[in-house]
Every structure is written in C-alpha cells, then in structure tokens.
C-alpha cells in the first residue's frame, strides 16, 4: 500500500466547509479520509504537519509556460516545477506559444510534457482561433478530446464579435469555458501603462481603463446571449469588476480571475520606468486595486490567477517601450496574498485558500480544489508563520521578472503533493 498520513495540521478545505485540527490520509494517490486522530496503520509514510496548514493544492487558471518556442523564458518542465514550489498542484497553460497550441497534436505535446515534468499537473488551454489570429475557429472538439480544458486566444482579444459569439456558442457543445482577455484593442492601441496622471508625467502611452470596461461589457453581453461559459482573465479595473458582479447577479455564466500584482500594486510603481512593473493589463489606480480586493472578497472574482509570464532578463533590460509585458508569479502568489490580504483583514485564510484552489478548479472544471475522499490527493502544506524575503535567485522558474523583488512576506509553502506524491519540498523541512 502506498498510504501517506499527513498528521496533526490545521486542515482547511473551504469547499467542504472543513477547518479542523487533524489528519489527512492519502491512499493510492487519492484522498482516503480527513479527520482528527486517523490511525497510521497501513500508512507507509507519515508527514508531520504540526503547526502547518494543510489545504487543497492551488490551481492556477492562467500561466504561460512558453513551450514550444520560448524555451529561453520557461519550459513546461521548469514552469510545472516552479508551480509546485508555489503550492500549485495544477496550472492551466496558455496557448500563446510559437507555434500556438491550436491543434490536437500541440495540446497532446503540452499535456505529455506536463506529465513528465514532475511538478504541478499541466492542463493545456488551446487557442480559440487558428494561430491566435482571430480569423478561423480551432477544432474545439478535437482539442478538448486531446486534453484541452478551455479555449482562449491568451493575451489577445478576439476582435471579431461574431467570432467571439460563435466561440461561446460552440464551446457549449464540449462544456469548456472560453477564457477571455477582455479589452477593446482599438482603444488600448499601443499603450504601455495605465492612462492617467502617472503616464502623463512619464510621457508613456496610456491604456485607458475604459478599454477594459468595453471589452468586459461586450463579452458579458455575448455570454448572456449565448449561454456560453465565459471566464474573464485578469480583471484590472473597478468598473470591470462591477460589470461582472451585476452580470453574475443576473445569472450570466461568468467567472473571473485577478492577479496578485493587480491586487497589490498600482501605477505609481511605474515611476522610474521599472520594466518589472510593465504588465498587461497595466497596474491601475489605488481605487481600482481596492475594488478588486473587495470583488475577490465578495466572490465576484472567484479566483486568483498568477498570469505567470516569464521573460528573459535581457528582454526586460531594455527601454520601457521596447520591453515586453509580463511578470512571473507562481512562486510568490500565496505568500504575498497571505501577507497583505489575510493579515490585512481583506480575506480570511480559508477564503484565500478557496480563491486559490476550489474557485479556479470550479471555473475551469478541473478535478482538484477540495479534499473530499476519492479526489486526487493534491495538497499543499503551509507554514503560516514563516517569514521570508522574495529573492528571484531562488526561483525554479527560468525567469526572474518579479515586481515583488525584496518583498518581506509571511507564510511559506513547505510541501506540495500531487496525486499523493511530493512534487516539491522546501529544503531543510521534513
């Protein structure tokens, strides 16, 4: 028997309403039991979780693993391992590779590389349109059969409203969500940061908040009209969050995600032209960040996404206009949000854990996110009191482009189990 007993931790499974001091028994890679005083008989190994939080492994609905085509930035292997180091047991990989993941063969490649990676599970998303060109639909049925869990043109708005409508309708046949970068591309034009007083002072081209609002409004209307499943990626404005809140009240099938950097940072950070703060959508105002935190707390935004976007150091070491958008996030997301949102009283720990596991698992229809017996034993063990400093040199990711360099944080993932096996363990911990 390959039983593992995780003994004596604070077991939090928000989806099941569990928050108790107790044990988790894993058998054959699945959760066998959760409770106080479970016996170690039959368990081959015992993991002492005293003082630790034991929770469902995190699920990231949005990570760029960059392979094929951008292996200099990240590979599926390095990305899946970085994910495990951040407490993620599953990530949804974006199809904006080169070539794009837009057919069954490329979906199969990503899934197979993911299985070999020995890190978090990798669930590929496939492109909505062939080559992400916004012209012709990909074969949703074929890519879904090959393992794609969602379709998205990742980072590009589907400009044609007709194509977006067809995508939402057609995806219903396979019950997969359409993940959408919602932005009016014409209005956003070539903006490199949030349009406002900071962009004015710096002389950088602005990306107006209203571009996102219009993009979200269109896709919500299309989702409502078609009954399709829409997942709004990385919401960044207060107005967009409010549109989503109202749509959910009307019963529109919409879920939404937000990144740690949009929750915690604002456009003032761009002062000094730090390219590590160049992300898309851009960092917005303090009022936007506050509204996003409220939307995450009230469940309007049901998941945290990292939008992990690795960039090679010399790509970011350029003049601001020339540097690419993107920030890594897999290895810092939990600690940052635990430090700033849980200690800050915005969310309780169980709520944060829920937004990082059950929320995204439900939004994307993935298996993890809860510790119900019979589910895959995807688990994270967290030392909630451990203080550490974000040091990009420690990342397992191939890239170091974090906007949180040197940030002092509290709470650290010490072990991640995927299917009952330890996928990552913090050095020096049992």
């Amino acid at each position, binding site marked *: 028997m390959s039983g593992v007993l995780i003994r004596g931790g604070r077991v939090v499974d928000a989806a099941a309403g569990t928050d108790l001091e107790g044990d988790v028994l894993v058998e054959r890679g699945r959760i066998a039991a959760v409770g106080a005083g479970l016996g170690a008989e039959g368990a081959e190994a015992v993991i002492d979780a005293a003082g630790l939080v034991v929770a469902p492994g995190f699920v990231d609905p949005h990570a760029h693993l960059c392979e094929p085509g951008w292996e200099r930035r990240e590979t599926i292997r390095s990305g899946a391992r970085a994910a495990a180091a951040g407490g993620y047991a599953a990530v949804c990989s974006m199809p904006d590779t080169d070539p794009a993941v837009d057919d069954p063969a490329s979906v199969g490649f990503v899934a197979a590389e993911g299985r070999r990676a020995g890190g978090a599970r990798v669930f590929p998303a496939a492109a909505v349109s062939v080559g992400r060109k916004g012209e012709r639909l990909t074969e949703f049925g074929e890519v879904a059969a090959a393992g794609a869990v969602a379709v998205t043109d990742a980072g590009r708005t589907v400009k044609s409203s007709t194509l977006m409508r067809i995508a939402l309708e057609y995806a219903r046949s396979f019950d997969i969500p359409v993940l959408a970068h919602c932005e009016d591309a014409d209005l956003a034009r070539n903006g490199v940061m949030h*349009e*406002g*007083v*900071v*962009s*004015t*002072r*710096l*002389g*950088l*081209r*602005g990306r107006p908040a209203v571009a996102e609002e219009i993009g979200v409004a269109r896709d919500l209307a299309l989702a409502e009209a078609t009954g399709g499943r829409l997942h709004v990626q990385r919401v960044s404005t207060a107005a967009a969050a409010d549109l989503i809140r109202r749509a959910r009240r009307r019963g529109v099938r919409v879920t939404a995600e937000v990144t740690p950097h949009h929750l915690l940072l604002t456009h003032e950070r761009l002062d*000094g*032209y730090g390219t590590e703060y160049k992300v898309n959508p851009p960092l917005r105002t303090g009022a936007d960040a506050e509204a996003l935190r409220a939307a995450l707390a009230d469940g309007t935004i049901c998941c945290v996404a990292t939008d992990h976007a690795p960039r090679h150091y*010399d790509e970011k*070491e*350029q*003049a*601001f*206009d*020339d540097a690419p958008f993107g920030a890594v996030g897999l290895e810092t997301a939990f600690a940052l949000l635990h430090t700033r949102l849980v200690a800050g009283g915005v969310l309780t720990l169980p709520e944060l854990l829920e937004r990082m596991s059950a929320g995204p698992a439900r939004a994307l229809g993935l298996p993890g996110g809860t510790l119900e017996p019979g589910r895959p034993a995807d688990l994270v063990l967290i030392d909630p009191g451990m203080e550490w400093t974000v040091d990009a040199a420690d990342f397992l990711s191939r890239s170091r482009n974090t906007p949180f360099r040197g940030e002092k944080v509290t709470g650290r993932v010490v072990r991640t189990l995927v299917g009952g096996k330890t996928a990552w363990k913090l050095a020096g911990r049992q």
Partner: protein
Amino acid sequence: MSGTAAALGKDLTGLEPLSADQIRVILDTAEPFKEITGRRVKKVPMLRGKTIVNLFFEASTRTRISFEFAEKRLSADTVNVGAVGSSVSKGETLVDTARNLEAMSIDMVVVRHWSAGAAAFLAARIPSNVINAGDGAHEHPTQGLLDILTLRDHFGRLEGLRVCIVGDVLHSRVARSNIYGLVKLGARVAVCGPRTLLPAGIEEMGARVFGRVEEAVEWADALNVLRLQLERMQDGFVPSLREYNRVFGITRERLERAPGRLLILHPGPMNRGVEIDSDVADGPHSVILRQVTNGVAVRMAVLYLLAGGAPHLAEAARDWTGA
C-alpha cells in the same frame, strides 16, 4: 555663489528631478556663455580633452547641431552616432550600446531616443554623464531650459509669470520639461489645445487648462507654441490642419485681441500656417531665433556643470580671448 562641482549630479535626465536652485544655477551659468557666440573666436578651453558622443536614435537637426556647437565651443572632442547606418539600426539593444560606450571610456553621452525613460535607463548603466536630448514624450530638459532662459531674458523674472503652452501637449516632451521647470521657478503655467491632445491628469502637474485659445491669449504673458506633427492628423487626433489653424492657430488677429503684449516662443521646427502664422513667427512678438541662440549657451552651461565646472568660474569664459 555656493555652486559646487556636484551642482547637478551625474546626469541631466530631466527638469523634474532638479530643484529650483539647480535650475537657476544652469540659467546663471548660461549667461557668460551667451557672449562667446557673439565673438570672433567662438571657443573656450573648458572641456578640452573631454570626449562626448551625441547618440541620436531619432532624427534631429537643430538639437544635434546645437549640442555639437556647444561641445565644440567648449573644446570637447565629439562623435556623432545616428540611428541610420550604425549598430543601432542593426537591432543592437540600448544596453549593449551603453556597454560599448562604457568600454570606450566616453566622458559624456548626449542621447535622444524614441522611448520615454531611455536617458535615465542609460544613465543608470554607465558611469559617463548622460544628457537627455529628448526621450519619447517624456522630457527635453535643455529645450525647457532654453525656453525658460528666453523668458527670463525678456521679462527679467519668472515668479508669477503666466506662460501658456499651446498645442499637442500629449505627445510633447518640450511641454513636460517646460511645466516641470516653470512650476518649480514660481511661474504660473497653463496648457491649451484640443482635448484630444491634452493628456489625462495634466492639471495635477500644476497646469491649468484652457479649452479655447482666445482664453489663453487673454490670460498669458507668453505663449509657447508647439509643433503639430502631421502624423497627429493621420492618427485622427485632429480632423484637419486647416481646422486646427482656424481654431487653435496663433494668428495676428488673435494676438491683436490680447490685453497686453504677448511673447511668442516656438521650439521648432515650425509648421507655418498650421500652429503659427508666418506674420506671428516673423513678427515683433516672436523670440523664436533668440531661443535658438540661447540653446547653445544653455547646453554649454549644462555640459560645463556636468563636467564638474564650478558655476562661478564660468565667468572666466568672458575673459578668454582665444589662443
């Protein structure tokens, strides 16, 4: 004067990082250099042995020539690197260009680049003094300084002076440097132009906004008229140059309705008949050529101060009669 060698720090990336005193030191230091331009032997030895690279990623005629004259009149050795026909056009990144300059032990780099923040980027990566000759829509500090010097020459003061910047403020680095500098020196600043060309939150930089040029003319002591790039029409910010001239152009008729005598500045190059009419540009209100003359003096002052020259010793330039 208390000016020290480090009066400006290592670089001039913009007027925003400078204090009012630092700006005054530059303006005061420019005074003795003005005279040299009028002399038979237009040369002083203050930067003898210094090597300066004029690194222009973006085409420029007047700024590059003005810097080159300033450098040569201070006896520096200069090299011009343009975007066309150099490694810059072969895809070399800014940081590689910087490292190559560093390896050649250049004393100073004058840089123009299309990207906002490029001068500060370079300044942070090389030990040479870096002077921003225009970075995207961010700053053009020597243009701001020469505009301010021209205003001070004419009015004898800057405190309380009302200056309105007219035109395409959105894309203008000249506008930003003027606003930063003038606000620090106690002038009152306004902007005027079509709303499509006024950037978000400009009021928070300390500028009031006039929607109509008639209001600006009535309010201001001086107008700094910005060039309207022809691309702006192609990009749809204004429907036509003809309409722009009719609604926002600085015409003699408009100036005649001003309560006082307005001073007209323009950073050039001008689009005659678009943002400014010829009879204004060539008329008695205009100090446009005076700006060009002051440009050389201001750039000499900046080069001299960044090279470690003491402000009070710049006076020696007056007495230098050439070898």
